[in-house]
C-alpha cells in the first residue's frame, strides 16, 4: 500500500471519528439526564449541560474527596453530606457497577433542592483495562415531591385515625399544603355550632394579629373570603384584597400582614353540613393555578374528615358521659355476657348491686347464681330463649346476695351476633328497683287497707239486705224444725214428710252459709286474685244483694245488659265493691226525690273490640257544675255521713284493672258513671259459639 493511500485512509478515519464525536457531543448537550465521565485519575472528561444545570456548576479540577462539597451533594436526609467514597462516580471509576442511588442536591440556583437517581458504570479499553467511569443522573424531583405529598397526607390521615387533637391534625395539614408551593400560606377556620360565627382552626404561618382578629368573627354575604365562602357554601376567589368589596372590613389588617390574594373554600361534612373553610393566601395579586386548586380539593376533603370525626367523637363522649352519669345515679349495672366462653364483664356499680368484689373474675354462671333460687329457672329460660332467637329479654326478679340480703332488680338485655350469625355476646343493664318495690308494696298495703275500710263501711249501708238475706233461711229452718217437732209430738208423721223437712233444713242452712261467706269475702283483706268474670252475672248478683235496701229506700234498680258481652279478667270482690259503691252513690243522690222518680239503671255494652263498658246512671241532681271530675277526689263528698273515699277507691280499683272511669251528666238529668275495662281477647268467638 502506498503512503498516499495510507494518508488518505488515515484522514478518512479522522473525519469519521470527528463526526462521531460531534454526534456524541450533540446527544450529550440535548439530553435531559446529566451525564458525567471521569478518567481513572478523577479528571472530568464529559460534563454535559444537564449536569451543569443539576449541580449548579461547571466541571472543575476538584478531586473526588471534594466533590460532595463542591457539587452540594447530600444523602436522602437532605442534611448529611454524601460520603466521598460512596459516590456513584467514585465507585464506577473503581470498577463497580452502581444502580439507582438516590441523592439530594441543593445549591444557590436550586434553593428547594433537586432529587436525582443515579446509575454508574466503569469504562474499560478493549483489553479490559480500567479507563475511568460514567454516571447518568435522572431528575426525579417531581416524582419525589408527589411521593412526599402522599406520605404527608397519609400521616395526617393516620393522626385522624389515632384521634390526635384536632388542632394538631389541622396544623399538620396546613403545613403539608404550604410545603407544596413556594410562598403559599394557608389557614383553616371552624364554623361554630351556632352556624353563625367562626373560630380559629389552624394557621401556623399567618401573623398572630390576623389570627386573633378573625377568631370569633361572623359569617355573612360580605365577610372576607372565608366568612363569605361559609355563608354561600361555595368557593370564593379574591385576587386582590385591597380592592375587593368582600374585604372592606379586613383591608387594613391584610395590608399590615402583607396579604394580597385570598381564595377560600368551604369544608363540608359527608352530610353536606358546613364545618369550616380552607383558605390560601398569596403575597401577589392573582387567582389559583390548577395545581393549587387540586391542593385545595385535597385539603378540604381531609379537613372535612378530621372535623366531622372530631364532632362525632364529641357527641359520643357527651352521650357516654350522660349515660354513665345516668347509670351511676340510677343504680344501673352495665354488663356483657360471653356465653360461649362463660365469661362476663360488669361495671363497678353493677358489682356493687350484685355483691361482687372489684377484682373477682366473673362468669355467666356466677351472675346467674345471684338470682333468687325461686326465680332462677325462669330467668335462665327467658335468657336462653332470647339467645336462641337473637332477641331481647327482660325479667323482674330478686337477687340473693351474700349474708342473706335481697334486692329487687329489672334485668334487660340484647343478644348480638357476628357477621356469620353466631352468638357473640349479650349486653344489657340491671336496674336496682328495691326502693321503688318497697314503696310500691307499702302503697299497695295502704290501698288495700283503704279499700277494706270502704267495704266495711259499705256493709253498714247494706244491713237491711244482709239481715233479710240471712233471716229468710233462718226462718225457714226454724219453721221446719218446729213443724217436725209438732208432727212427732202428734205421733202421726209420715217418714217421707219428715225426710222432706230435714232436707229443706239442710238446704236452708247451706243457703245461710252462702250468705255469710259472701259477707266474709267482702270484708276479707286479701282480695287480688284475678279470674275470668262475666260482668252481667256479677251485676245481677250485686243488684240482688242490695235489693232489700233498694226497696227500703223506695227506689228501683233496673239492668240493661248486653247479652254479647265478652268476659273480663278481674277480681270478683273488687268489681262487686265498685258496683256497690256506684249503686249506693246513685241511690244517695236521689234521696230528695219523690219515690216514683228514684231510679237507677245499670247497663253493660260491648264498646269496641277490646273494651267492655259498664254504666250506672241515676236521675238525681247531677255532677258538681264547676268540676265534674272532682267527685273522684279524696274527701270530696256531698253526703253528710260520707267519708268521700268511695269514688277514689273505685277509680284506683278500676285503674289497677287497666280500665278507666269517667263521671258525666246523663241526658235530661242525673249523673252517669261509665267504667271501661279491657275485654279478654278471643271471648267473642267463645260466646258466639255458645
Amino acid at each position, binding site marked *: 500500500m502506498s503512503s498516499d493511500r495510507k494518508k488518505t485512509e488515515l484522514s478518512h478515519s479522522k473525519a469519521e471519528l470527528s463526526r462521531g464525536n460531534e454526534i456524541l457531543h450533540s446527544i450529550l448537550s440535548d439530553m435531559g439526564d446529566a451525564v458525567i465521565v471521569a478518567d481513572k485519575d478523577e479528571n472530568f472528561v464529559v460534563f454535559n449541560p444537564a449536569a451543569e444545570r443539576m449541580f449548579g456548576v461547571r466541571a472543575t479540577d476538584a478531586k473526588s474527596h471534594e466533590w460532595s462539597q463542591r457539587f452540594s451533594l447530600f444523602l436522602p436526609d437532605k442534611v448529611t453530606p454524601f460520603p466521598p467514597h460512596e459516590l456513584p462516580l467514585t465507585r464506577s471509576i473503581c470498577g463497580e457497577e452502581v444502580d439507582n442511588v438516590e441523592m439530594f442536591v441543593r445549591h444557590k440556583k436550586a434553593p428547594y433542592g433537586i432529587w436525582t437517581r443515579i446509575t454508574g458504570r466503569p469504562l474499560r479499553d478493549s483489553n479490559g483495562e480500567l479507563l475511568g467511569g460514567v454516571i447518568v443522573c435522572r431528575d426525579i424531583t417531581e416524582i419525589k415531591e408527589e411521593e412526599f405529598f402522599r406520605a404527608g397526607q397519609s400521616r395526617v390521615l393516620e393522626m385522624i385515625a389515632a384521634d390526635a387533637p384536632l388542632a394538631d391534625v389541622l396544623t399538620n395539614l396546613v403545613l403539608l399544603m404550604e410545603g407544596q408551593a413556594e410562598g403559599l400560606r394557608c389557614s383553616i377556620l371552624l364554623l361554630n355550632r351556632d352556624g353563625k360565627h367562626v373560630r380559629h382552626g389552624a394557621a401556623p404561618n399567618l401573623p398572630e394579629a390576623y389570627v386573633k382578629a378573625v377568631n370569633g368573627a361572623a359569617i355573612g354575604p360580605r365577610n372576607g373570603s372565608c366568612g363569605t365562602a361559609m355563608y354561600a357554601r361555595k368557593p370564593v376567589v379574591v385576587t386582590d384584597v385591597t380592592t375587593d368589596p368582600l374585604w372592606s372590613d379586613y383591608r387594613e389588617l391584610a395590608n399590615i400582614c402583607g396579604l394580597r390574594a385570598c381564595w377560600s373554600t368551604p369544608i363540608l361534612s359527608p352530610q353536606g353540613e358546613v364545618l369550616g373553610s380552607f383558605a390560601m393566601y398569596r403575597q401577589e395579586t392573582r387567582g389559583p393555578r390548577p395545581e393549587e386548586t387540586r391542593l385545595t380539593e385535597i385539603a378540604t376533603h381531609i379537613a372535612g374528615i378530621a372535623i366531622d370525626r372530631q364532632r362525632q367523637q364529641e357527641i359520643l363522649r357527651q352521650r357516654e358521659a350522660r349515660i354513665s352519669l345516668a347509670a351511676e345515679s340510677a343504680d344501673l349495672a352495665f354488663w356483657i355476657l360471653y356465653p360461649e366462653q362463660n365469661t362476663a364483664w360488669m361495671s363497678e356499680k353493677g358489682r356493687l348491686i350484685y355483691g361482687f368484689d372489684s377484682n373477682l373474675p366473673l362468669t355467666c354462671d356466677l351472675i346467674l347464681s345471684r338470682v333468687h333460687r325461686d326465680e332462677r329457672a325462669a330467668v335462665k329460660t327467658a335468657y336462653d330463649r332470647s339467645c336462641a332467637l337473637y332477641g331481647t329479654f327482660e325479667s323482674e326478679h330478686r337477687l340473693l346476695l351474700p349474708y342473706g340480703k335481697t334486692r329487687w332488680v329489672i334485668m334487660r338485655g340484647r343478644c348480638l351476633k357476628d357477621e356469620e350469625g353466631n352468638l357473640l355476646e349479650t349486653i344489657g343493664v340491671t336496674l336496682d328497683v328495691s326502693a321503688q318495690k318497697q314503696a310500691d308494696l307499702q302503697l299497695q298495703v295502704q290501698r288495700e287497707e283503704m279499700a277494706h275500710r270502704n267495704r266495711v263501711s259499705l256493709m253498714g249501708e247494706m244491713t237491711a239486705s244482709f239481715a233479710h238475706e240471712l233471716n*229468710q233461711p233462718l226462718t*225457714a229452718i*226454724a219453721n221446719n224444725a*218446729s213443724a217436725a217437732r209438732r208432727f212427732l209430738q202428734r205421733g202421726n208423721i209420715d217418714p217421707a214428710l219428715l225426710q222432706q223437712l230435714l232436707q229443706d233444713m239442710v238446704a236452708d242452712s247451706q243457703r245461710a252459709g252462702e250468705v255469710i261467706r259472701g259477707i266474709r269475702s267482702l270484708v276479707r283483706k286479701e282480695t287480688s286474685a284475678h279470674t275470668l268474670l262475666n260482668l252481667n252475672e256479677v251485676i245481677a248478683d250485686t243488684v240482688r244483694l242490695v235489693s232489700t235496701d233498694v226497696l*227500703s229506700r223506695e227506689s228501683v234498680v233496673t239492668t240493661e245488659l248486653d247479652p254479647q258481652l265478652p268476659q273480663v279478667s278481674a277480681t270478683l270482690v273488687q268489681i262487686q265493691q265498685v258496683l256497690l259503691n256506684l249503686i249506693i252513690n246513685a241511690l244517695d243522690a236521689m234521696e230528695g226525690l219523690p219515690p216514683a222518680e228514684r231510679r237507677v239503671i245499670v247497663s253493660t255494652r260491648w264498646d269496641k273490640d277490646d273494651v267492655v263498658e259498664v254504666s250506672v246512671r241515676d236521675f238525681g241532681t247531677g255532677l258538681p257544675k264547676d268540676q265534674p271530675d272532682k267527685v273522684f277526689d279524696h274527701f270530696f263528698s256531698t253526703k253528710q255521713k260520707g267519708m268521700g273515699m268511695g269514688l277514689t277507691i273505685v277509680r284506683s280499683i278500676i285503674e289497677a284493672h287497666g280500665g278507666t272511669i269517667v263521671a258525666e251528666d246523663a241526658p235530661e238529668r242525673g249523673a252517669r258513671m261509665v267504667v271501661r275495662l279491657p275485654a279478654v281477647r278471643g271471648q267473642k268467638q267463645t260466646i258466639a259459639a255458645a
Partner: protein
Amino acid sequence: MSNPIDVEEKEVCLVDDDPSVLKSMHYLLASEGIKVRTFSKAEDFLTHAGTHSVQVVVTDIWMDQVTGLEVLARLCAISPKTRVIVITAREDLAARATAMAIGPVAFFMKPFDDEKFIAAVRDALNQSRK
C-alpha cells in the same frame, strides 16, 4: 166439709216471695192441722182475695214486685174484714208503724217464735169466725 164456705173459714193464706220460707210456714201450720193456701206473688193473692172470702192472711212486707204495705192497702179496699198477720225479715220501725195503722192483728220479725205465731194465727181464725 161439703160446705165451701166452711172450708174457706178454716183456710189461711200465706204470701211470701221466698219459696223456702213459704214452704216452711206451710208445713208449720199444717203440723197444727191448719189448712193453708200459698202465694209466692202478691198479685196472685190479691186476685184470689177479689173472688174469694179470705179470713186470715200472713204476708211478708218486703217483696221484690209489690211491697207488703201495698198489699195491705189494696187488701183493705178489697176485703176489709180479712185479718192480717205481717212477717218481715227486717226491723223497720217506720214500716211497722205504717203497717199497724193499716190494721194488721200481729207483727212478727223473722225468724219468729213458733208458739206465738201459731197462737196469733189461731186467734185470727177464731176472731174471724165471730
